């Protein structure tokens, strides 16, 4: 299975007829079991791209193609949003079984799926809590478990940790790395954080400022499992520096334009 993002462009047209060009000719593929990170300055169209891939927004031109899949009713994607988007009226367990419920999985099996993912993300003991009783990090664990329980062909994450405080964020990056190494889901991860992109990704797609274009696609050749030790390695810093080079130039141009 491979997901082809085939020359996607997006122009928003608002009620007054004014248009905003958000994405320009985005073209790349996500291979089976690959962890792809899209990094770019805020407002460059990252969320727009993710929503188009998730089928929550139409593109102006171009297509998203899942190659080599049997067309069944199973959802192709599941999304982890920055603001968690948990159903406040559902407990942790009931949030996680939402996807299986919708695809008609039997009660008993739903429960087993939930148990598996609750263990995977480390939420044992919180099954019957409501989202408002959880910390931000916990909420995002639930959201990740819910997405995984839906068994998507492609998992999409839109800046999932940017609503968290810096310490929790770092810990969640380690956690996600571990979870991904256990599941090897095809994953498209969006962030504006360069270190995060290098730490997590197999490949990093660097976007320009708006309208988002692909500036570079960088293969991150770092060993897995990745952990805290990685952040001190020379190669890691070199990758981060290369991406920063692109983004710095963009930011400069933006500042000069504004000034």
């Amino acid at each position, binding site marked *: 299975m491979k997901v082809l993002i085939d020359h996607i462009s997006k122009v928003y047209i608002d009620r007054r007829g004014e248009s905003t060009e958000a994405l320009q000719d985005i073209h790349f593929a996500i291979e089976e079991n690959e962890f792809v990170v899209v990094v770019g300055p805020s407002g460059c169209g990252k969320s727009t791209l993710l929503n188009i891939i998730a089928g929550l927004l139409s593109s102006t031109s171009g297509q998203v193609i899942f190659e080599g899949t049997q067309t069944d009713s199973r*959802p192709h994607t599941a999304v982890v949003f920055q603001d968690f988007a948990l159903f406040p009226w559902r407990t942790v367990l009931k949030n996680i079984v939402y996807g299986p419920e919708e695809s008609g999985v039997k009660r008993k099996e739903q429960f087993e799926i939930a148990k598996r993912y609750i263990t995977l993300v480390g939420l044992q003991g919180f099954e019957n809590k409501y989202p408002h009783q959880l910390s931000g990090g916990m909420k995002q664990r639930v959201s990740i478990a819910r997405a995984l329980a839906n068994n998507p062909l492609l998992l999409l994450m839109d800046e999932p940790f940017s609503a968290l405080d810096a310490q929790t964020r770092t810990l969640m990056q380690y956690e996600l790395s571990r979870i991904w190494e256990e599941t090897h889901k095809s994953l498209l991860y969006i962030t504006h954080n360069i270190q995060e992109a290098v730490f997590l990704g197999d490949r990093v797609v660097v976007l320009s400022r708006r309208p988002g274009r692909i500036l570079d696609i960088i293969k991150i050749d770092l060993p897995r499992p990745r952990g805290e030790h990685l952040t001190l390695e020379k190669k890691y810093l070199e990758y981060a520096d290369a991406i920063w080079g692109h983004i710095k130039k963009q930011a400069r141009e933006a500042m000069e334009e504004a000034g």
Partner: protein
Amino acid sequence: MIGKVDQPRVEKAIVQDKTHFLQMKEHPWLSTASFIAILLLWEWVSQMAWVPPLFLPAPSSILSEGWTMLKTGIIFKHIFSSLTRILWGFVIACSLGVMVGILIGFFSIPEAVGNPIIAATFPIPKIAILPLLILWLGIGEASKVAVIALGVFFPMVINVYTGVKNVDPLLIKAALSLGSNRARIIRKVILPSILPMIFAGMKLGIGIALLLVVAAEMVAADAGIGFMILTAADLMQTKKLMVGLIILSLLGIFFNWLFQKLERFFVPWKQ
């Protein structure tokens, strides 16, 4: 030196909490005490016969009147009649209100059709429609139930509509990405999202229902609290009239308590 003013020297100044007065103290005993005090004052004024009992009967005499009405069971007949009307009107209005509210909130064609109709009919005081309803449905139960239903329907439909419009679009997106279709979105996202608004509509609605049942029973009825109050007034039975008012107050308090409990039970995710 320019700009330098001699400041009076102070040895020390202690910082005070300026928000102090904002912290409202609680006076649990005061509420009860003042309530009892007013009753006692009223009793005393009546006992002194400064006001004729016809205008202001003493609380004790109202209470004993109520007690006799309880014993003879006559009071239950009236309460039962009124409650039956309220219940029918309320149930009809709430179910229709929720359905219509979701329909016009979620689908564009019903919204385009429904909105102007609601905007045009909502401002009419519902009691003014009662004569028309009597003309259409006769003088019996149907017209009374209908006027209550109309009165409760509007706050419900408007609350539900507003609720649907304010459902977090992110939750809808989340549900869609997890495989829900439109019908399931309504059942599994919209409905739970608007539950608090439905309860708010019910609390508003019950006040209106009490008002309208009394009004309708004053126009035409042979039983009910409104009827009881009106006939008591006609016969100058002030005590009986007062009993009617107390029952209305108690009913209002009871329904508010009931809806509070129901909301706690059905909306456990809001602390």
